[in-house]
Every structure is written in C-alpha cells, then in structure tokens.
C-alpha cells in the first residue's frame, strides 16, 4: 500500500508507521478482530501501513516499526522467532490475553508436560514447553488486553499512536463500566463475576450480556482480590468456581497459584 500524502493533525505532521502482525500459539482471533472491523478498516489502513499480516495477505516485508504480536510462547522455535521480531521492531505490542498473560493456553501449566503430551498425543513425540506470555521472553512496550481484544479499543490505541498520544489503560475495574451501562449486577442474579477486580476498558462486555466477567483483561490497578474471594464465598460460590475464574486467562495467575496451593483439593495433579 502506498503511503499517500503526509497527513497532519492540527498542523502537526503525522507519522504513518509500518506495522506488522504476527501470531504465536493462539486462536488468531485478535487479528481477526481487526478484519472484523468492517466500518473503520479503510481509516485504519490510512493511519498505518500494514507490511505483514499473514492471515490476510501474501506480501511480506521485514521492514516494520510496530509489531503487533498475538499468542503465547509454547515452543523453542517460537522463542527464536519472537526474538527476531523484537530485534526488528521499534515498538512491540502484545495483542490480546494470550500475548499478555498466556491466555487460556496457560491452563496447561497446571499439569506436568509429560502428562499433557500423553493425554493428547499418546506416545507419539511432540514438542512443547510451559506456556509463557511474551514479556517473559522479550521486552514488551505496550499491551492490549482482552480475549478477544475489543476493536474499538484497538482503534483508539492505533489512533493514539498515530497522533502521538500516550496510551493509558483504565485503572478502574469493570464494575465502573458495568454500572454505567445500567446492567443488573450478576451477583444479584446469583452468578459469579470478576468485574470488581478486573481492569476496565472492555466496557463490561460480558456483564452487558448477563454473563459474569472471567477476568480476561487481568487485574485492575490495586485490585482487592482478597476481598473478592471473601465475597464470592459469601455468595455461595465454591472455591472451584473462584479458581476457575481466576486462573482462566492467566492475568491473575499469582492469585490463582496461591489459591491452588492453599486449597486442599489439588485438581491439577490428581489427573
């Protein structure tokens, strides 16, 4: 795609960065969210120059400034490929929960690798490593949370990058947005929800649909997880349910690990 005339905003010339998209172990859904972005796709392409997007295009170039990287790291060849991307990119963006926290993939880490391999591939050899988020391997400059990422948020972030505005994530939890959306609180309906401790920004996507939050965006700033656990218990949710939510996407892994350790029931190793 050609660059077109230099654009300006309030007289300030804008930089049209070359961007590339890459994926590691993931469902590729976060990238797809961009293609799902029918109405703003053209504007999006005017802001950035896409030079590499395997899911959508055949052309590829190694000359890029911003790398959007989706997926978690689960194999040694991925480590190498990621380091290579890091060395070429000025800004490396972790796109989605897998890249930020390991995503659902990291649930694998509850088990021994041997057991996992055997359960799925029997005795055939297969290579795999414990699941890691990108930042465990390389430096990550910016994270875009969510499973999947929200296209409005990606749009806003890309616009901000183009005009040189800082990307600031909400520090407050989902509840703040949920209440503004006038939802019925799921706790009133007897459903669990991690809204009080999960970082806002998705505009309470799940609770808007009467579906409790699973914490895909990781903890809000200064999240009161201890109190949350107490509340869940008071509402009659089992430790299993609390753990299921906390461990699902990896954002709360430190809390989930602690909870798993404290619980007598060690579901992971019993299998």
């Amino acid at each position, binding site marked *: 795609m050609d660059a077109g005339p230099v654009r300006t*905003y*309030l*007289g*300030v010339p804008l930089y049209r960065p070359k961007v590339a998209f890459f994926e590691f172990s993931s469902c590729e859904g976060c990238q797809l969210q961009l293609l799902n972005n029918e109405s703003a796709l053209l504007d999006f392409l005017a802001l950035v120059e896409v030079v590499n997007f395997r899911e959508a295009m055949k052309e590829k170039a190694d000359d890029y400034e911003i790398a959007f990287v989706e997926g978690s790291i689960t194999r040694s060849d991925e480590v190498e490929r990621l380091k290579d991307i890091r060395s070429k990119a000025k800004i490396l963006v972790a796109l989605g929960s897998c890249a930020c926290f390991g995503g659902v993939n990291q649930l694998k880490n509850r088990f021994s690798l041997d057991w996992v391999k055997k359960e799925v591939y029997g005795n055939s050899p297969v290579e795999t490593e414990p699941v890691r988020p990108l930042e465990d391997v390389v430096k990550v400059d910016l994270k875009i949370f969510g499973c999947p990422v929200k296209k409005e948020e990606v749009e806003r972030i890309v616009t901000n990058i183009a*005009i*040189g*505005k*800082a990307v600031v994530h909400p520090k407050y939890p989902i509840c703040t947005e949920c209440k503004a959306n006038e939802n019925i609180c799921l706790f009133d309906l007897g459903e669990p929800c991690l809204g009080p401790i999960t970082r806002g920004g998705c505009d309470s996507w799940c609770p808007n649909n009467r579906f409790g939050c699973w914490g895909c965006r990781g903890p809000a700033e200064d999240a009161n997880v201890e109190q949350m656990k107490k509340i869940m218990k008071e509402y009659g949710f089992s430790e299993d349910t609390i753990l299921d939510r906390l461990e699902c996407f990896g954002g709360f892994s430190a809390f989930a690990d602690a909870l798993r350790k404290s619980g007598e029931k060690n579901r992971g190793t019993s299998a």
Partner: protein
Amino acid sequence: MSAERRIDLDNKLKFTDIISEAPQKQHRKSDLSTFEYTYKAEITNIHRLTEMENLYRIQIIDTEERRQFIFQPGQFLMLELPGIGEAPFSISSSPARHGDVELCIRKAGNLTNFLSRVGRGTHVGIRGPFGTSFPMEKMHGQNILLIAGGLGLAPLRAAISYAQDNRSRFNSVDIIYGAKDPSQLLFTYQYEMWRADDIGLSIIVDKPDLLWKGPVGLVTKILEQMFSERGETFFKSTYAIVCGPPVMFKFVCNMLNQKDIPMQKMFVSLERRMHCGMGKCCRCNVGSTYTCLNGPVFDYWTVMNLKEAI
C-alpha cells in the same frame, strides 16, 4: 396528539434559544452558555525556555473578545486542543495585556507534549479566566516577597509583571527563586529587566553546574539570609506569595510564620487535576473545597485548615 396535552413549557426555560445565541455572547459569569464556550485563540509565538518548558504567547482572535478577557495575577485558564485534551494553566503574563496572554508550559502528558509539537499559527481553545487571584491591591504600600520553586515561577510571573507595572505602589519587592539546576532556570532573559525595575532577585540552585557562580541549596537558605539581613519590622509589613511544590511551600510558609508574617498574608497556589474549572467535576476538590473556584490561590491559613491539601 392534541396540542393542549403536550407539556406546556410554561415557566420552564427554553434552551434552544440560549444555544443559538451562545457564539455571539460575550463571556459573562452565571450564563448557561459560558459552560463550554471557548474563545478561539492563536498561538502567535513559541519561546523555548528549557528542555521541558516552552513559553506560548496566545492571542484571542476576536479583538472584542480579546479586550474583554480580563484576568488577575494568579488566575488560570483552560487550554484546549481538540481531541488531545484540555488542561488548566496559570496565566504567566501581565494582566494589562488582557486576552493576549503568555503561558509557561511544562511537558507533562498528552496535551502538553502535543503542544510542544505544534507550530505558530495553531488555533487553540481557551476558557476562563478562572479561580482566585493574588490580592495585589491589598498589598499596596507593603513589601512583597515572591518565592518560587521550579515551575512555580510561571504563575508568579503575572504578579511580578503587575509589580513592574505598578512598582511605585509597593515598598520593596523581592523574588527568591530556586531551581534544581541552572539548565532549568526559567525566564533567564528577564532577570536584568526585573532588577532594572528595582525588584530584588536572588536565585539559588540545588545542583550547580561548572559555570554556576551563585548560591547553592534550597530557597530556605536565601530566606535565612534575608531574615538576618532585614529587621523584624520588615516582615511586619510584608505579604508573601509562594508558588512551588507542596513540600516547598510548606517549609517556606512555616518559616515565614515564625517571623510573624500572619498566615492570612501568605498566599500559595494549589494544583489538582481539573476538567471543568467551574466547580462541577469535583476532580480538584481538596476536602470539599474546589481548587478551581475557591482557589487555586489560597491564603496559607485556609490551606492549613484543608485536610489533604499538602
């Protein structure tokens, strides 16, 4: 739908009228249309002061509006760049110049960084002026002591300009100015002019560089000196204006208080996040006091009584 059943707006206001009038309306307090009314202004000059601070000269485009824009030293305005942000800035120039103001702005975030990238001729939006001011008139016939730390010199400069413009109305006028290091000193080109206008100026830096010949330390050090140089009676007829980080003005004010300057004769300027400038958004509240309405200039007695002020 029968006409008589519709709600008759009887004594209720019809707001459509106000909106259509809004753009022509001059800025009047207590008028509904002033809330989001911005003066369109142009950046006519940008002067780089240091690595971090620029001085922007901003002129309201409409001459009539410019004439009507009257402010007092210590007041601030809200400066807006569409889509980038809006933030409060103290007016840093002489009140005599009405709607042709200077703002000394430090790069601190979105708006201020973007401002450092725009060029002359850029249009900005201005709301204001807002807030309380240094009661300059009350100080007539007295000594004034202007103490600034770092960026605190920005709001102080409006008071200094006032003192320059009205030098004969004050007894002695002294500035004590402290900065981290010599490279961060603001308005260096004006120091001689101030001195020429019979304004005492002492500058102190915390971390000197090789060329620095002046005193080294904190503003309190100069203040100590001043205490020993000037007699007790000097402080009896002195007003102080202190601008700078909270830790600094807390120390300075307490020292001045020991020299028996009453707390009501010391003025400080507080800084909080602000969105409206009009006492609505509550972001600037200290306790229940609005920094934008009841401040930003407070006498030190009030500040002492505000919980969480410092």
